[in-house]
């Protein structure tokens, strides 16, 4: 394992401390490192709290700030945070207008946020994101994973929250954005969990994982390395098959790197994905390219397509000022 770390036991703490110090103008880290919060809160606004296992930076801590989250709870690497973290975060940022949890659809996250909700004794609602089409959706299983589409939910709901929308309205908006967002990912290499010390899975030199999750979970199938155009084609086909709304709405195309993939390749994938959309008559209205929802050092990327409407476009365009995403201010 080759990483820029000291002791594996301190990776999370030192990284959080560095993050908080580098962005001290925007965020504060709780003394026990249970949560990252906005430096200054906005009275009367619904508090948005997300969180999840660490290793996906800048998600979620990097999206704390004006126009997105009020707090984020970092779990251990790839492990959902514990209820005490969400309880403490809610205590710190609840302004009396209620709290909205944004939770990625993993059982660990669901249960820990649920226990926090039960124990916090506050007005709390939850939006669950499950945008990953690589996994079959079914009532009988855990269902689909929440992946990079979570950023889109946090951005759009975050912008709406700044305008003073109430808890129920924000929950509905979050559910709408989630329903209109679909993602799929591929990996060229595994990631390595620091404490595990070796790659989570092993791939041959000529292999890739199609439909991988953001924890290095194996995907739909293992295939021979494919050209970028063919990869994008398969991903876009899978995404559009499950996103009826994209037939009649302009879309956001979000190309997300997993941590070990450079910008040059992400832009090449954008080119490939945009071509696949254009061939199907889908119009791209907004774009985002970068490593925003990562899997430690995994090489690979995901594509997210969100079918936009006017409300969503205006909230997407609204000013945002966080360590990880910033525009308009």
């Amino acid at each position, binding site marked *: 394992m080759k990483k820029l770390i000291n002791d594996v036991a301190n990776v999370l703490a030192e990284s959080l401390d560095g993050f908080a110090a580098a962005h001290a103008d925007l965020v504060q880290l709780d003394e026990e490192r249970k949560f990252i919060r906005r430096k200054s809160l906005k009275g009367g606004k619904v508090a948005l709290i997300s969180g999840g*296992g660490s290793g996906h930076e800048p998600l979620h801590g990097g999206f704390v700030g004006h126009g997105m989250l009020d707090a984020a709870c970092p*779990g*251990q*690497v*790839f*492990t*959902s*945070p*514990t*209820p*005490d973290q969400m309880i403490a975060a809610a205590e710190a940022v609840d302004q009396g207008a209620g709290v909205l949890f944004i939770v990625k659809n*993993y*059982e*660990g996250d669901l*249960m*820990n946020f*649920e*226990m926090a909700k039960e124990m916090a004794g506050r007005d709390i609602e939850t939006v669950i994101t499950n945008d990953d089409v*690589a*996994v*079959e959706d079914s009532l*009988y*299983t*855990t269902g689909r*994973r929440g992946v990079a589409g979570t950023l889109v939910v946090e951005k759009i709901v975050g912008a709406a929250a700044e305008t003073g929308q109430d808890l129920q309205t924000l929950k509905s908006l979050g559910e709408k954005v989630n329903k209109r967002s679909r993602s799929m990912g591929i990996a060229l290499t595994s990631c390595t*969990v620091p*404490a*595990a010390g070796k790659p*989570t*899975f092993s791939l041959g030199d000529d292999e890739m994982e199609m439909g991988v*999750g953001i*924890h*290095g*979970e*194996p995907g739909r199938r293992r295939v021979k390395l494919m050209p970028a155009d063919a990869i994008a084609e398969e991903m876009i086909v899978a995404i559009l098959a499950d996103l009826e709304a994209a037939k009649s709405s302009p879309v956001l195309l979000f190309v997300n790197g997993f941590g070990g993939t450079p910008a040059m390749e992400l832009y090449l994938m954008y080119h490939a994905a945009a071509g696949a959309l254009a061939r199907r008559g889908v119009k791209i209205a907004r774009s985002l390219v970068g490593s925003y929802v990562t899997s430690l050092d995994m090489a690979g990327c995901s594509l997210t397509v969100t079918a936009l409407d006017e409300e969503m476009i205006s909230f997407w365009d609204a000013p945002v000022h966080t360590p990880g995403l910033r525009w308009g201010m």
Partner: protein
Amino acid sequence: MKPDLGRLLEGVAARIIAQAEELTALDSAIGDADHGLNMKRGFEAVLADKANILAKPLPEALKAIGMTLVMKVGGASGPLYGTLFLTLGKELPEDPTLADLARALTAAVEAIKARGKADFDNKTMLDVLGPVARHLGDGTATFASVRALAHQRAEATVPMKAIKGRASFLGERSIGHMDPGARSSELMITTLCDELEACA
């Protein structure tokens, strides 16, 4: 039976910590490679809190263990094992009989099912805990039979297709691997049997 809770606790914790790498390796195959790390972190926290826990009567001690697991383990296993111990604490009297234990574990299994919205044969810890709870109540349980059952039920998760938990994302590809949570449940149960037998 009047075993020493401190010894039981240390025994179970030591076993989980010692097998942490194996649990993580199982989780690498069909999950996200952290189950051993999670359980180790949880039981280290329990050990650190041992004096406090042992000062309490059994039901309160079990609740304290459950709360520590909830607040330290994280992931799916934290709330679930936390629920297990919290429910045992709620259901057990200070000086439980085998029948009390069977009833309490059955209640805990139901609580885990509710918390995780899962059922038997979903390829989870429930596939070990459920059968063991039933066996404890069927009047034939011995240390050896409980151990054998726990082991057999963990092995029985190998050919299952996961319906719940992270392994469910794998669909058919989850077949052929033991469920890490089933294995950690087996470890806890067999270690408990070992310790209780040694005191008996």
